[in-house]
């Protein structure tokens, strides 16, 4: 499903986002992406969504080499990927309903089916009562949930969640993790970049650890490894 082959990402200003990272995530897998702030988690996800292209190395998504996808085809790729952005990236001039509906309109879902699907997604994240609000009228956590609803609404093949619980209380965080699990159990490949130690520890899923842009460790059924262990892992 997703494969990184010796991927390095150097941003235009020279900052290293990712360094020689290789990893393979199969269809239907559930993986956590952990690591200190600035360690390259978001960069990892951006490479999958083709928001950036690798400087060297190859990224395959759905058996396609992202750097070879024709420009016109990029939207098609993205429609199979739901992204919960770390900074939400909601459209400020659209209501919550319209924000979620947008990804359906983009894919040409018939207008009649849209309201039902949007309501379903908003109910899932417990936000149906805010559907007519604009993002600026929501609390941080509500905006985050709107972003989650948008990522889920068209049942993508791949779900990229970048710090999806950063603005949510523990209970709501758990609810969201349940939702991601459920999507996963229906076959969606889920990658969650997170700092939430509690959740990673409890879920015992695959954990990919990043440190300074390198993959420091990659373990099945792991917990959130502390920084020094990461370091140790990197030395190896």
């Amino acid at each position, binding site marked *: 499903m997703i494969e990184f082959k010796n991927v390095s990402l150097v941003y235009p200003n020279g900052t290293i986002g990712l360094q020689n990272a290789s990893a393979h995530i199969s269809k239907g897998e559930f993986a956590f992406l952990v690591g200190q702030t600035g360690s390259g988690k978001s960069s990892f996800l951006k490479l999958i969504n083709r928001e950036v292209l690798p400087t060297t190395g190859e990224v395959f998504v759905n058996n396609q080499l992202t750097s070879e996808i024709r420009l016109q085809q990029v939207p098609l790729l993205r429609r199979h990927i739901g992204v919960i952005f770390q900074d939400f990236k909601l459209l400020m*001039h659209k209501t919550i309903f319209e924000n979620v509906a947008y990804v359906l309109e983009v894919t040409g879902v018939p207008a009649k089916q849209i309201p039902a699907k949007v309501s379903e997604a908003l109910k899932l994240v417990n936000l149906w009562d805010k559907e007519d609000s604009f993002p600026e009228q929501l609390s941080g956590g509500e905006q985050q949930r709107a972003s989650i609803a948008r990522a889920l609404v068209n049942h993508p093949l791949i779900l990229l969640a970048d710090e999806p619980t950063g603005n949510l209380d523990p209970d709501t965080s758990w609810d969201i993790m349940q939702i991601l699990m459920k999507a996963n159990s229906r076959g969606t490949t889920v990658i969650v970049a997170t700092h939430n130690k509690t959740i990673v520890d409890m879920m015992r899923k695959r954990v990919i650890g990043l440190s300074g842009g390198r993959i420091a460790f990659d373990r099945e059924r792991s917990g959130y490894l502390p920084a020094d262990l990461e370091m140790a892992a990197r030395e190896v």
Partner: protein
Amino acid sequence: MNPVYFFREVITNLRRNVLMNLASISTVTVSTIVLGLFLIATLNLGFWVQKIVDQLQIVIYLKDDVSQEQINRLYDAIKANPQVKDVEFISKQNALKRLQEKLKILIRMNDMPENPLPNSFEIKLKNSANIAAVAKELETFPGAENVKYGQNIAQKLLSLHQAVRIGGLLVVALSLICTIFIIVNTIRLTVYARRREIRIMQLVGAAFWFIRWPFILEGIMQGLLGALPAFVLVYLSYLLFVPRALHALPFIPFLPPSGILYYLLWTLLTTGIVIGGLGAFISVNKYLNYE
């Protein structure tokens, strides 16, 4: 592709960004008003100069010994010339009467034993630009003592006419370019203010055309909503202005408002709509990420 969706988008966006849209729409209005005024001014100036040029005429003074029969033949010959629009015979007597009228009491009739003025033809041409050539041709006519067409003033008027035509075209072209430039810039700024949105739309999988169309339609709407009041304003002002101007300056001809109606309407509306749409297209493309 769902046109209803795009239209709803556009209406909603116009409504939600009222301040921004008012700024850009009114800019379109103002700049197309200026364009419209230039257009009217140029059309009228051309019309005016044309009127003056149309008054140019060739006068053939005849020798005194030319017989009435010869005069008749000459009349027919001139009339037959395809360049000639109109020809009138002015007898010695009429010429004197005219001169007396013109100079009023200055010439004491009793001082003059005989009419010193010759017979003449006054000829108007279909196209005054050819006046010199035609005059030359008429000189060869038997019986013509002298052919005059106000060489001096005719040349002045004709070059003025030419200058007004070229200058008018230039002015309209220039103001059209200015209008286009201003509208495109304005639309670009409105798109610039929404560049983050464009980026987000791309990130959630919207195709290029799907992002572009609402912006283009919005540009078209801004152009239309801007140009329409401009047209109404300019046309109404002209409608009110012409009778007053004709009253105050009765000797200057003005094009009747109905004569400029369609010209004005199409120039302003197409400018607004086409440039609005095109400007939006160009601007969106600038922020669409082609990497």
